[in-house]
């Protein structure tokens, strides 16, 4: 029952010849919340991108197992249908594509994949109503094109709203806290916490300890220059907040 949702084994990846991730190991089990912290450019978004299957990134070595299978074999949409969700650091605006239409299409793809009947417009609206409230999203947002003209905070809340509708097994939240004021941060964190249960897991990427006051991680990992240089419990985040990233020196390769 407690077999891992995600297992990253010595993953190295990058763009073209450039290596960005230089040997990552990480195991996430059901019910766990992991946080990845690290300075700008350390490779956090790259890790998220590789997990989600973004074009342009090449895996140079190692493995990623998701629910016991080789994740890297799957197309991005297949990963999503299998319950992997990426909340984007920079959500994309899609002019001309209505938000409701978009999310309903996504939702029905996932349902089809699970062998469930597709939802019609009425059923779908019923489903999203409560989730909109959970994220304090104004209803008219759903009538607008995907993310178009949304404020920074609305975009981020919209990501978590989509997560609430799609109910992923593993959610990767890339800097969901950036650009949020303190009230919005609480709303988002509250949403994320409500979505947590014993069978799913969350990987929260953030710069700041602040978010982790509200989304309390079981594990904190520090990513630096493409490597996890330190792992610990939630207190590690506090320590980082206090001392910055510099006090963690990179472990000697020999120590690995």
């Amino acid at each position, binding site marked *: 029952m407690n077999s891992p949702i995600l297992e990253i084994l010595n993953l190295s990846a990058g763009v073209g010849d450039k290596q960005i991730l230089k040997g990552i190991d990480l195991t996430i089990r059901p019910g766990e919340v992991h946080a990845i912290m690290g300075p700008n450019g350390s490779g956090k978004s790259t890790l998220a991108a590789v997990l989600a299957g973004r074009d342009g990134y090449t895996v140079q070595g190692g493995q990623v197992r998701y629910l016991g299978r080789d994740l890297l074999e799957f197309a991005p949409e297949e990963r999503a249908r299998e319950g992997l969700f990426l909340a984007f650091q920079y959500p994309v605006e899609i002019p001309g594509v209505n938000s409701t239409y978009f999310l309903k299409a996504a939702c029905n793809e*996932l349902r089809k994949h699970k062998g469930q009947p597709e939802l019609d417009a009425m059923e779908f609206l019923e489903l999203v109503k409560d989730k909109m409230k959970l994220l304090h999203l104004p209803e008219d947002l759903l009538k607008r094109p995907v993310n178009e003209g949304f404020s920074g905070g609305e975009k981020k809340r919209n990501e978590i709203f*989509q997560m609430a509708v799609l109910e992923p097994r593993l959610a990767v939240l890339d800097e969901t806290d950036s650009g949020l004021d303190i009230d919005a941060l609480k709303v988002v964190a509250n949403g994320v916490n409500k979505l947590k249960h014993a069978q799913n897991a969350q990987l929260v990427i953030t710069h700041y300890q602040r978010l982790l006051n509200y989304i309390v991680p079981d594990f904190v990992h520090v990513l630096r220059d493409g490597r996890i240089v330190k792992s610990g419990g939630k207190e590690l985040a506090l320590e980082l907040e206090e001392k910055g990233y510099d006090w963690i020196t990179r472990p000697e390769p020999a120590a690995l």
Partner: protein
Amino acid sequence: MAAHPTPAVNEPGAYVEKFDRFQKSAHDPSWLHAARQAAMGRFAARGFPTLQDEDWRFTSLAPLAKLPFRPVLKANLGTLASDTLSTLPFAGLQGSCLVFVDGHFAPTLSTIAASGDAIRIGSLAQVLNTSPALLEPRLSPSAPDGETPFAALNAAFFQDGAFVHLPPQHVLPEPVHAVFISAAASAGSTAHPRNLILAEAGSRMTFVETHVSLAGAGHLTNAVTELAVGDGAQVEHVKFQDQGRQAFHLATLRSTLGRDSRLRVHSIATGARLSRNNIDTRLAGPGLECLLNGLYLTRGEQLADHHMTVDHAEPRGASHEYFNGILADRSKGVFHGRILVRPGAQQTDAKQTNKNLLLSDEATVNTKPQLEIYADDVRCTHGATVGQLNAESIFYCRARGIGLETARHMLIHAFAGEIIGRILHAGVREELDRLIWQRLEQHPLVGQPHAPHP
């Protein structure tokens, strides 16, 4: 470039000869006789434009020049089954439907919805018979500004087209739909539809113009539509050019707008081997607003050319141009957007956007703004883009479980939808949305991945 000897059929001489015969058989009032003569003179003097002609730099008429010129002087209406009509675009549209076969009115196929007696909807030829004096001021004037050689050719040869006259303050709630069917079988068959829409002060209407082909051989539709929008009138004009892949479609839409009027022009081009739309809009009164909105979908070897002239002649006019193109295979899009702001046309607000989506590496677009601004207090913006589907957007869809093919469909549909969404008349908009969707499904590359360009 070496000068090619022009094929004999393409020399103005061949056209003049056909014209002389046509005029002998016609029973025109003398003013019209003279007007045709003058127009033919203008065409003969200019001949076919070549690529050296600045206004035709990207649109080669060489394949058209190879066709014989066969104006269809009398239509064969018997060949057309009435159930053909039910398969044509906008078949279910409420309102009047005027059917023209090779440029000639087909009364038995048409329905003219009851309207107040003051409103006239029907065939131009009939009006020419019954009340020519009404048309004289509209049809006899000398060459209008920016007349193409083909508009002159139309003025020489036209016989029929849609005629709508709305007296002041009259409102037509249902659209008038004019369908132009190219049916003649012989190569080079040419129709010269001439539409005249007179919307007087304070009136309102929607006019839909569709062009389709039943003919298989190369044929030409050479159309002119004149739109006179009176003071405070509101007119929406929707053109759907969906002709066969052997068709040549040359058209001029000439609009004159009065004070405080509102005009919305939508030009949707999906058909024809080569299409050229000259859209000349003259903002002849102060404080008016016009929307010029268009979409072209091309594939194979198709070429779609829009040549816009927006003439701001009076102060406080607003013109907004939005043209989107979706191009597959080796097809070609051409957009030329001329904006003229005359001295004294202060507080002009002119905006022009041309966006193109290339679905293949071999598709090409030539887009060119041409701004001539002779007033100082104006707001004039223009922008053009040519690109592939946004890779970020596709990834965003896929990361939500939407497959690559569906994602591409969604984005392409959205791109077309930006244009279709500006059509005010709901029935027309919904039908066009359906038609465009259908045409996009026929696009070979819509569903295929295209190398992402970073």
